[in-house]
């Protein structure tokens, strides 16, 4: 498996684990946790070259949670 694919697999697994952490919330709505970088940084150079297609490498400052679909939890809240 390509290194890029392995990295993406790990990122997806991490996201799934975090979904589990907020199971009740993800059942009622969507949320996204976004952490800015703590310092300015230039772009890391991608040895794959320009004009790549496909997913980009995982960023070092990863977000937690994700946007998940509402699964029709019944509530009187709008």
């Amino acid at each position, binding site marked *: 498996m390509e290194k890029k694919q392995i990295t993406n697999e790990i990122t997806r697994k991490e996201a799934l684990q975090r979904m589990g952490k907020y199971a*009740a919330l993800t059942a009622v709505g969507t*949320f*996204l946790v976004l952490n800015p970088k703590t310092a300015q940084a230039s772009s890391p150079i991608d040895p794959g070259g320009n004009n*790549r297609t496909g997913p980009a490498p995982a960023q070092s400052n990863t977000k937690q949670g994700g946007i998940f679909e509402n699964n029709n939890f019944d*509530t009187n*809240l709008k």
Partner: protein
Amino acid sequence: MIFTTFPMFNAKLTDHYIFWFEDSNQYIVVSETIKDLLDVFFKTSNKSSFLEALQLLNIPLKNAEAIYDDLQRLVENATHVAEPRSETYPVPTVPIDTIIQNYKFENTIVRVNYGSSDIENLIHPQWSHATIKDGTHPNTNFTIFAEGDQLFLYSDDDFVGSYPKDEYHFLQGQFALQLVNTLYQKTESDWIATFHASTVCNTEEAIMMIGASGNGKSTLSAVLMASGIDVLADDFTPLSAGNSEVYRYPSGISVKEGAFKMLETLYPDFDNYPLYVSTSKRVNIKYIPPNGSMDTSPVHLPCTKIVYVKYDPNAPSRLQKVSTEKILETLIPESWLSPLASNAELFLEWIKNLQCYELNYSDNAVAVSKFNELFRA
């Protein structure tokens, strides 16, 4: 647990709400349902009041308890302040024997003293177009050198920071900030953010481009510049707190070998641009000098449009409106945003007025035409 630290600010986006937490400088984007739950969470003083409130809304107790626990975890995470890095390094003496380069940006002269040619290679290539021979009376005198496994940055006689050699991109980012501080007589607290974005402009407005690493932002900047569009900034776009406008970052546009052949058709002098090998010694890159100059082109402009760009040769080209939430998903984690409350408030105000788009393109001519359309929109 009683929380006394509530999010400082929140704002409404298209279909979601965004909260900002001062302790962690974290942003949370939530749907309306979760926003309503958070309102109840912050208004009630403890768990039992929260559960009572949710039972009035006919939410079963077991679910309400699970929701409370999740919200508590979410807010605890948002109010957690990371431990500052504990490693400290003795501040070494600034070396005398350095490689000196002087750069001129309109009326500002910047001198950089590089400790070695390897260090010079980290910074100089993207500024080589601005080199001048004589840098008498520079406005700022930077020194960058290595000692041990650390890179040190000084601005005049002041120590700015040290960065591990293998994290040299932090040195490059800090240098970029120090440079715009010099160019515009600002300090870090005068910026709302420095976005990982490229920005193009006309005389009235700027349009920001973001995208995942490797999706072709810089190449697209080069293509747009060849068509006559002014590139205000490549890869680093600072947003000022004073006027909520984006400022010119007058660097060369970095392009990688994969795009050389295509760019040779757009830039007659392309072969003459020096070739650099990246520090990792795995990528050949060139820097295309910017066409806009600081004395004749706008230095700062309002920006109300952001485009998520993606080159995909296998898909039809398409420009479509997207939600601000989708843009923030990339913009925030990839950028430095000021941790100051006053600047976070300005950021939330700025994003409320954004028009956001996604551009998938497989053809340069189409990309150029779409951007020209956006300038007219």
